[in-house]
């Protein structure tokens, strides 16, 4: 499993006082926290060194989207188009048309919202090889409020034919997703966040577009993440999560296990194409599914999961996200609590479903 939890286990055995253990675990996890946008900025530089055809565009937010590091190292391959997102998408399309691999970055609300028609007409329809890396997605934009909190971008991008939609859960997975996007021939939307998040993606896991990963229960054979579904076990609850909600989903699963509710957690960063095989297996082995995302409950991961289960193996699904409303200002932490993107809320929902069944 991932590093912080491994380490916390070691500390747990030595700690003679529960409070000491909690504070140490918290400190370690805080030190491991990193925003996905930071990992994106680093991955871009890595890519830029590998491939001279990588070019990067930004719309006056390079310090926020972290494309500034690439700009510094490769100024001739960086285009800051100013506050003109529609034009940025069009220029990216033209660059891709003539052989470049453009990464176009701005906030998700502008990338998917303001420039939707340019993404549709100039990028998705001709299937140009443009990577749209959209940062500051969801409510964890925080204090800037609803105007800057994209809660419908997954729905918009997912509905575009040929568009790949990736929502990585942490820094490590972001790096892998950015690399995978660069190797993929076709348009990709990568959803990134502003807030620092804990590491949850296993060190020994690779990343493949179209594949999900069972993160809990932990694999008995290292690296065999999805093998647990072949064992004939049945779970009371399966959490399917993407982005920043993978961490609280894992916490919820651990807590519920202690209460005697066997759970499974799968991460589904590849929202499109979605891992149908894995989802059908999960549906067959679980009494219910809870989907978790930092997005509207309409059109996002929850909808994608339901589209698969409804076709193949209907099972009760609770879709947790933002309930068809705009966000508001507040600290990221306060908003996460307010909208219930917490392990406590996930546990509560899971308990209700399980007890309602008995």
């Amino acid at each position, binding site marked *: 499993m991932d590093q912080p939890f491994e380490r916390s286990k070691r500390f747990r055995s030595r700690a003679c006082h529960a409070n000491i253990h909690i504070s140490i675990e918290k400190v370690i996890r805080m030190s491991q926290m990193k925003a996905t946008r930071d990992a994106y900025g680093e991955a871009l530089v890595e890519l830029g060194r590998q491939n001279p055809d990588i*070019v990067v565009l930004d719309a006056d937010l390079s310090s926020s989207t972290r494309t500034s590091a690439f700009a510094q190292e490769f100024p*001739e*391959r960086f*285009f800051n*188009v*100013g506050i*003109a997102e*529609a*034009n940025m*998408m*069009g*220029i*990216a*399309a*033209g*660059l*891709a*048309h*003539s*052989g*470049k691999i*453009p990464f176009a970055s701005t906030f998700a609300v502008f990338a998917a919202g303001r420039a939707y*028609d*340019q993404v*549709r*007409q*100039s990028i998705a*329809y*001709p*299937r140009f090889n443009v990577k749209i890396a959209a940062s500051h997605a969801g409510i964890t934009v925080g204090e800037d409020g609803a105007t800057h909190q994209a809660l419908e971008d997954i729905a918009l991008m997912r509905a575009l034919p040929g568009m790949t939609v990736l929502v990585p859960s942490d820094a490590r997975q972001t790096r892998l997703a950015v690399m995978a996007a660069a190797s993929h021939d076709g348009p990709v939307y990568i959803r990134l966040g502003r807030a620092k998040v804990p590491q949850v993606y296993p060190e020994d896991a690779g990343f493949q577009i179209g594949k999900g990963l069972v993160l809990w229960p932990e694999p008995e054979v290292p690296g065999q993440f999805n093998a647990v579904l072949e064992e004939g076990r049945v779970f009371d609850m399966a959490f399917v999560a993407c982005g920043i909600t993978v961490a609280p989903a894992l916490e919820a699963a651990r807590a519920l296990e202690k209460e005697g509710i066997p759970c499974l957690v799968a991460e589904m960063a590849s929202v499109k194409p979605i891992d149908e095989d894995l989802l059908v297996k999960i549906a067959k082995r679980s009494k219910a599914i809870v989907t978790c995302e930092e997005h509207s409950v309409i059109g996002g991961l929850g909808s994608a999961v339901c589209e698969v289960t409804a076709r193949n193996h209907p099972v009760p699904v609770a879709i947790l996200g933002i309930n068809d409303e705009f966000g508001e200002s507040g600290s990221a932490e306060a908003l996460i609590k307010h909208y219930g993107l917490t392990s406590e809320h996930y546990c509560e929902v899971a308990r209700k479903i399980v007890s309602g069944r008995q």
Partner: protein
Amino acid sequence: MQNPGNKESLIRFIEQKAREIRIDIVKMTAKAGSGHPGGSLSAADIVATLYFGEVLRVKPDEPDWPDRDRFVLSKGHAAPVLYSALAGRGFFPADWLDTLRQLGSPLQGHPDCKKVPGVEVSTGSLGQGLSMAVGMALAGRLDQKDYNVWVLLGDGECQEGQIWEAAMAASHYKLDNLIAIVDHNGLQIDGRVRDVMSIDPIDDKFRAFGWHVFRVDGHRVDILLDVFQQALDIKGKPAVVVADTVKGKGVSFMEGEKDWHGKAPNPGQLEEALKQLQAV
């Protein structure tokens, strides 16, 4: 571009090709029963000069030739004018033209670059072609290629804000490998451009955005040939040719009539249009 002795014959050749394009336009739209003859006819001399006047360096048998000049039809509704020119240059069989707008045809109502050899980008949602052309011009510079990027805009299209975002970027990046042409026919769906939402003074606007501006008669092939060469010679900034045209040019009852923006001729109107075009 060509020696003076041949210029007269080249001009006559282009004019003949423009006539053939106009005939294709009215035939195609009549057969399809829909489409945009007005803005296709207004651009016929411009497109004929580009494709048949040795202006665009393209290889019909190698449409993806990396060093080719790019032509972006930003006013994508004028697809018939482009389709006819591409067929005339041999990018695809001429009998495709009979299938315009039919289910299964590569010739979509607005150009689809995935389906038609020689169509560089898919256009139709107005305002987007100039940004894509800027991207192509930047890519050419990065790769140290000497291709040029040509983009044809509608005058009504210049009401789209994205045109001016792209115009700003083109001069910011000093893209002298980018040439825009405005098919300035003065009409849009709802009426005269100056009544719906004036873009005047269009020359001064482009000039203020850092472009070198030419203003010419968009139906004079000899002038277009010269001005395109002059536009290529402008260094350090992008150039725009504002070409004054007549919507529906070549068919008397379509000329200057906004209603022919997006309406196909019926069989009687087709007959009359062909009579006029073939008599020239």
